[in-house]
């Protein structure tokens, strides 16, 4: 391939594209657009299912402090909270008391000892509702009833996973409360302490940690279990968007709090299974993407092949008047790049101009996740590059197949 081949090839490609029928061009470009979307969006949704950052947003905050392994609470909790609140970029800090307990729903109607207990176990979490809301937007995750307020005496929030209504599982290991919803009275049991409470609201954040908890006002829980040392079991810290969480973590460690508690970034605290699920979905996305790429190359191959086949006579004429095979092949490569390029541009616009902004505002409502569209520019560019390379090959091969045929036969249509 030399300069003249490129020049003549481009000359031919430009004129062929310019004089191609609008309908054909539109059809080919829309096929390319769909191919591109298939390549980028399917993967983006799959990975977006798990890359929602929900764990950070609705549970851990940007930095989470939890007890050391051998301790049952965080020592010097109040100092940690005070220090965290003083850090640059920190928006809110939520300190949570946590006790294991259980809820009983049919304690009034259950007459005999042998009647089945309608109950469910979970962690009872004492929170300051305002702090908690600033850290995890918990109030926005109420799907029934309403959020807690300071001073609510015998009111609780229940995670949706604890209610049969929302989690239709009832295996011996995992029990859920039947016939229970916002407004129901239930018995809260912590060890041998019992109190009758009302379910004020139901929480569903699609984060396992949150959806299996029972929330109540922190000082209510403290008085219920007679705990007055103000040492809590979990501290979540929320930063301004863009603020560096590792700076805050480091500040807490430098102050020596790592001797008193585990200080982790959101990602470090993410449960292992979530990380595995992310990897799995990423892998699946790539797998489907690879299939998409194969489909894309076959599509381009067929389009260029049909295009070249219908122009077999003209390819013969070109060869007959002395145009080099390489120039003709190059003209088809340029054409396929043109189609793929247009498809890609439209696809990029659809993804970043329409789909992503829309889904960012209206996440896709999957049962276990509010899916976002995870389409980082770098990944997309890699796909664009792969698509272009594929296009060059898939455009070149069919052109070569036709160009290789006997010139005279092509001209005479034999």
């Amino acid at each position, binding site marked *: 391939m030399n300069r003249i081949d490129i020049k003549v090839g481009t000359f031919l490609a430009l004129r062929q594209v310019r004089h191609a029928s609008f309908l054909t061009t539109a059809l080919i470009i829309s096929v390319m657009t769909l191919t591109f979307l298939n390549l980028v969006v399917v993967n983006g949704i799959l990975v977006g299912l798990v890359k929602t950052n929900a764990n950070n947003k609705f549970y851990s905050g940007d930095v989470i402090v939890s007890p050391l392994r051998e301790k049952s609470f965080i020592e010097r909790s109040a100092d940690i909270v005070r220090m965290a609140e003083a850090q640059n970029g920190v928006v809110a800090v939520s300190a949570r008391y946590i006790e294991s307990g259980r809820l009983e729903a049919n304690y009034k109607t259950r007459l005999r000892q042998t009647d089945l207990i309608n109950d469910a176990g979970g962690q009872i979490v004492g929170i300051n509702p305002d702090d908690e809301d600033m850290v995890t937007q918990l109030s926005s995750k109420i799907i029934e009833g309403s959020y807690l307020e300071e001073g609510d005496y015998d009111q609780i929030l229940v995670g949706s996973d604890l209610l049969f209504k929302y989690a239709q599982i009832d295996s011996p290991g995992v029990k859920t409360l039947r016939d229970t919803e916002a407004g129901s009275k239930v018995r809260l049991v912590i060890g041998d302490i019992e109190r009758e409470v009302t379910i004020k609201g139901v929480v569903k954040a699609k984060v396992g940690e949150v959806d299996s908890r029972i929330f109540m006002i922190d000082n209510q829980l403290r008085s219920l279990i007679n705990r007055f040392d103000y040492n809590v079991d979990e501290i979540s810290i929320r930063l301004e968007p863009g603020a560096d969480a590792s700076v805050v973590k480091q500040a807490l460690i430098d102050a020596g709090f790592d001797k008193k508690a585990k200080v982790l970034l959101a990602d470090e605290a993410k449960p292992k299974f979530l990380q595995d699920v992310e990897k799995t979905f990423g892998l699946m996305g790539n797998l489907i993407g690879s299939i998409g790429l194969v489909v894309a190359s076959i599509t381009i191959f067929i389009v260029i092949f049909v295009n070249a086949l219908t122009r077999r006579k003209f390819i013969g004429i070109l060869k007959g008047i*002395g145009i080099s095979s390489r120039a003709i092949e190059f003209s088809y490569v340029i054409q396929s790049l043109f189609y793929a390029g247009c498809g890609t541009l439209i696809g990029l616009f659809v993804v970043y101009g329409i789909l992503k902004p829309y889904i960012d505002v209206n996440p896709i409502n999957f049962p276990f996740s509010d899916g976002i569209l995870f389409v980082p520019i770098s990944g997309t560019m890699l796909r664009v590059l792969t698509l272009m390379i594929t296009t060059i090959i898939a455009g070149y091969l069919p052109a070569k197949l036709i160009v290789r045929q006997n010139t005279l036969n092509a001209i005479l249509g034999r």
Partner: protein
Amino acid sequence: MSNIIEVTNITKSFKDGDRVTEVLKGVSFSVPKGQFVAIMGRSGAGKSTFLYQLGLLDHPTSGELMLDGVDILKLKSEERTRFRLERLGYVFQDYALLPDLTAIENVVLPLLMQNVPDDIAYEKSKQALMRVGLEKRMYSLSNKLSGGEQQRVSIARSIAHDPKILFADEPTANLDSESSENVISIFKELHKQGQTIVMVTHEADYGKITDRTVLLADGVIIEDTINAHS
């Protein structure tokens, strides 16, 4: 050696399964520079097949072929393409223009392929189109032209690079009498300027304007006459 075409005992046969059809059965033929030759014969005589061999659109089964002093059959396929591009012109019966290109683009394309600079190439193409009287339709898409006009574009394309030999296969077969006359007068004019031309034709009349008439029948030359007028 003044013969620009020197053909020795060329044969061409086609295989179709076990059947072998011998279309050219040993044709020898030479043309001096500047001669205007008409090749005639019945349909199926092998005229087109013969011209394809001469015009390097096909490859003979056996024989020798010298064009412009070059032993063609010793060339590699790429060199043959190059030779055809630079030194030969070929006018097809059905014009063989590229529909996506305008008249002038059709003409300029082989020149661009020869690495002629754009301005010179377009200038030469304009001149070629003027010679065939088409300067007014230069920028029309070729498939929007009439048959006669298309054939003239095809001629312009084949002469724009000043070929050593111009081949034409029944250039007037698809044209009405007026367009035919027009085309033939172009050939006459080219001939006057010294162009070597080999033209396949059905029209016995054209014997009046050519230097020589070669009659093909069943794959061999059965008659070769120098026409009296020249």
